[in-house]
């Protein structure tokens, strides 16, 4: 099933124990093809971020299976998950999550530092980071620090960081949550463009207008997928 980049079965995530237990995910089934652009939507607290953290290998499910590119990743240890995040996944967060004291290009180079497979020279890393920044239209802002940039620009740096290692999958958790409409549209345009160039994109959003620009909308409610389970 090579064309299924992501396949999850009966995924559950339970926070806490006993009476206070919260079933953030309650039997999620989902498949995403390579090259798809999927939007995950649903009310607040429905489990979107929880799902994305598991899909992004930042977290492990309580129960259920998760195959990423044909590999069962639900049983991997922390170090192995870190390797997968580094090579196969790029994250874009609502709050940008850039290193505040580092310049744009240093931020973008960060994933390259942790590559275990290939060791790249300093100049190679810089070239790759510069290319990624150019791809998001920030070729002229490489030496700016986050506090010298607008929210939209910071988020574009974050996207460049997500791209730099050429991952299969880009995951964005409300990437436009802190941005105004025009900046939001810019971000979604960049994601669309990346999609057109073959990347798989999973984006969480609250805004129907942005969700509509994806290929498929997965709707979550109370930890279950109610719509769009399969593409």
């Amino acid at each position: 099933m090579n064309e299924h980049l992501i396949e999850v079965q009966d995924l559950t995530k339970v926070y806490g124990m006993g009476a206070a237990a919260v079933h953030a995910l309650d039997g999620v089934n989902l498949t995403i093809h390579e090259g798809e652009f999927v939007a995950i939507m649903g009310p607040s607290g429905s489990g979107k971020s929880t799902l994305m953290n598991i899909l992004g290998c930042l977290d492990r499910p309580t129960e259920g299976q998760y195959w990423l590119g044909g590999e069962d990743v639900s049983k991997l240890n922390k170090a192995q998950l870190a390797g997968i995040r580094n090579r196969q996944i790029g994250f874009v967060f609502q709050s940008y999550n850039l290193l505040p004291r580092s310049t744009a290009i240093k931020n973008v180079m960060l994933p390259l530092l942790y590559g275990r497979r290939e060791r790249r020279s300093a100049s190679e890393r810089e070239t790759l980071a510069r290319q990624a920044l150019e791809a998001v239209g920030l070729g002229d802002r490489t030496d700016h620090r986050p506090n010298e940039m607008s929210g939209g620009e910071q988020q574009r740096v974050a996207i460049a960081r997500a791209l730099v290692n050429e991952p299969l999958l880009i995951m964005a958790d409300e990437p436009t949550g802190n941005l105004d409409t025009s900046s939001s549209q810019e971000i979604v345009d960049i994601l669309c463009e990346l999609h057109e160039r073959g990347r798989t994109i999973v984006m969480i959003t609250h805004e129907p207008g942005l969700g509509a620009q994806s290929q498929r909308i997965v709707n979550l409610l109370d930890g279950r997928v109610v719509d769009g389970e399969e593409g």
Partner: protein
Amino acid sequence: MNLWQTIQVAWEGIAINKVRSFLTMLGIIIGVAAVIIMMGVSAGTEATIADQIAGLGSNLIMVSRGFGGGEHGGRGFETEGLNYEDALAIGEHVSGINGVVAEQIASSQIVRVDSATIETDVIGAMPDFPEVRGVELADGRFFSQQDLDRKAKVAVLGYSTAQELFGDADPIGQSITAGSVRLTVVGVMDEKGLVGQTDYDQRVYVPLTVAFDRFSFSRRFGDRVMTIYVQAESQDTIESAITQIDALLRRRHDLTAMDEADFTIYTQEDIIETQEATTAAFRSLLAWVAGVSLLVGGIGIMNIMLVSVTERTREIGIRQAVGAAPSDIRLQFLVEALVLSLVGGLIGVAVGVGGSWLFGQTSDMRTVVVLNSILLAFGSAAGVGIFFGFYPANRASQLDPIEALRHE
């Protein structure tokens, strides 16, 4: 991430809070510097004392008046302790010895010739002095026993004293006046230099009996002497000489073998042993001081690293999100702690070496910077960094990425 990149990242982390990092290092700096300076002073003192002991002469047996002297009822003031007669008796009756010397420092005196006046120590000495105390004669002769018996008004000059009084002229046969006593110079000693605090070249020697009679400081003590120096023929005769001296002095002082002696007999070896015991005690004290300050420095590093991990939780989360494994994070913080302690150690070495030098320049104590102490101090600093850095680093590596990313 390779080690070099890790060091760069760690250095950036340290450089962000320069003042805080420096204050954190201060404990290590002080610890390391203290070790080097104190070991320097201790080594310097040891060297000085070793010189002093060797400078006394060789195969020496020293007899001093004992601290218990005078408690053994009945004996009057005159027989208390050691006197010139004791020294003569040892020379006469003890076998296996090269010579006997008793000395009396007759306090500082104004010494005059026609052309110059200086103030210098006048020492009453006995004929065997040059041989027993290892001082060579440069010119003329030393006193003979006849000089002592006849209380001849003769003098032997220390090397510098001769120079100061007579310059290039030949002092032999010349007259000098020490205090109110006119003396004829019969000899000049060779250069010996400073041994400990004693300058052997700045002296005037007179026969011991003359010192007893004519120099005020000595007169008050009659013919009593503080120390009698006996030189054994060789290392092997020291034991038997000591036994003979002990028996002889007990007989002369009316003491039985049971009585506590009013004199003490010891050798250079005994002094060295005592010295070594003191130094060993001093050294273990040093080790404690150093250990405690490094411990305090280490706790400081651990404290600041824990603060740093908390402050940078979000940074840790970001690094984890882009693929840093727990081992990467652990290494980063461990290297940071290590860099802190090593830089602290380096500064400490610099301060310690500089401080030792300054100490040696500004006080009359000698300091010797020991390479071992530098290596030891530096190595301990590194050990402290790793030991106290491990817990915070491990804590950082165990952070959950999601919680770390949510951290404000």
